[in-house]
């Protein structure tokens, strides 16, 4: 089990590291568009479209990675003041909401992707850009996020049972700075 969780976390971290370079690709494509239009004088019609398709992947696929970093923004007004155990139990309580969202996204994303793959769907631009690879990554992004969410749920359960949650298996364990602040405030 630990091995499985570690693998999921590592896969997401690996994806995050490599996909992050996508911003450079988008940058180069858009700059190429301007350069081709003005310096070369022959505008390209595919660069902007390709950049958009890459951006779409870039935007969704990092969801699971962001969860390993506990980077999805939340409102910490009350949450930030809770003890670690209290936070873990609240997270377990609200986990079904996460499951609903990501589960339905996986299900419907799978529908969209399989239809796009079956038709080898292309855009209706002149370049006829293949849309199916980007669409196929919607359920992939959902799976990556869902798996990491399951890892998180397990780490919350372990917190309640007083077990350790090593960072290389479960990703970042919340906010250590804030934990310290909480402890200090309680001591006052």
């Amino acid at each position, binding site marked *: 089990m630990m091995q499985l969780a570690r693998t999921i976390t590592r896969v997401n971290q690996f994806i995050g590291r490599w996909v992050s370079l996508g911003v450079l690709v988008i940058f180069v494509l858009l700059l190429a568009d301007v350069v081709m*239009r003005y310096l070369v*004088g022959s*505008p*390209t019609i595919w660069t*902007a479209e390709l950049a958009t398709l890459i951006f779409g992947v870039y935007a969704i696929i990092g969801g699971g990675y962001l969860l390993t970093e506990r980077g999805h923004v939340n409102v910490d007004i009350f949450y930030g003041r809770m003890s670690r155990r209290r936070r873990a139990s609240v997270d377990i309580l609200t986990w079904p909401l996460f499951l609903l969202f990501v589960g339905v996204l996986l299900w419907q994303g799978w529908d969209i992707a399989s239809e796009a793959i079956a*038709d080898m*769907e*292309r855009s*209706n*631009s002149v370049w006829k850009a293949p849309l199916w690879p980007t669409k196929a990554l919607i359920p992939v992004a959902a799976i990556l996020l869902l798996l990491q969410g399951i890892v998180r749920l397990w780490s919350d359960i372990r917190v309640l049972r007083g077990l350790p949650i090593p960072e290389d298996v479960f990703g970042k364990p919340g906010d250590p700075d804030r934990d310290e602040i909480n402890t200090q405030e309680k001591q006052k």
Partner: protein
Amino acid sequence: AGEVTWRVQAHWPKASSSFTASLGVVAAQLEEKTEGAFKLELLGAGEFAKGPDIYNIVRKGVVPMGTISPSYISDQAEAATFAYGIPGTLRQAWEMEHAIKNLGVEALVNEDLNADGVHMMCEKVLPTEMVLSKKIESAADFQGLKIRSSGAMLDYLAAAGAAPQYIPGSELYQSLSSGVVDGAHWGAAIGAQSMSLWEVCKYHYKPVLAQTTDAFILNQDALEGLPDDLRSALVDTITTRFFLRSAEYQHFEAIALTEGVANDGVEVMTLPDDVLEMLATASAQILETEGQKGEKAAKAADIYRTLMKDMGYA
């Protein structure tokens, strides 16, 4: 009799005149005809979906009805591009109405769509025309002209030497005003007016690049599930509206252009003959290529060719 309410996802923005004059009128007439038994709840572009995805939500039955540009469904139906309109072929709106309804282009599209559970009924014929910030006096002026374009029109303009490119609608005005592109087509006069294009492009070019259409699409299961009287009320209303709305739209086009000339200082121009010649060659080529998509596309291409021959265009 029970009451039926259908959600309809339009591809027009809700506050636009197209939305009100097309969908709004159909909804009102239908409600009147059925004495309130059949209501349409109208959604503006993007409320549930926009663009090509409207086809999907209708096909899946998320909403029973929607409006599209047939250019969205060129992958779903062989003859869709012919229902949308081929640049440089038909010149008058009535020719397009005739080709769509009497000569069978719409029926050819429906052969494919019905297999998908969708039925298309054209909403109106509307022209596409180009606006430019530069004057074109010869084919040389047209060379390298940067035009915001999309779909089949892109090939067409490129063939005559322009350098068409894609700019998202949200950045079009800014791009025209600063000179990133020299021109665009967004519908014709009504489109140019609603997108404020005339503020930055003073030359409005004739002839039409193409006669095109907008269309209603209906989920077949939903359509068949209607009581007979409601179904025929809906189908009859849409069928009649096609001709009425197409005629009315031409009138509004003329009004819009007159207003543009008076208020925005627009000059109505005609493309020079040498540009038109190059466009004509490109048009024949596109017709040829589109016709090779399959049996139904070939039939549609023949409908176009015959009509053009009878009109003396080719």
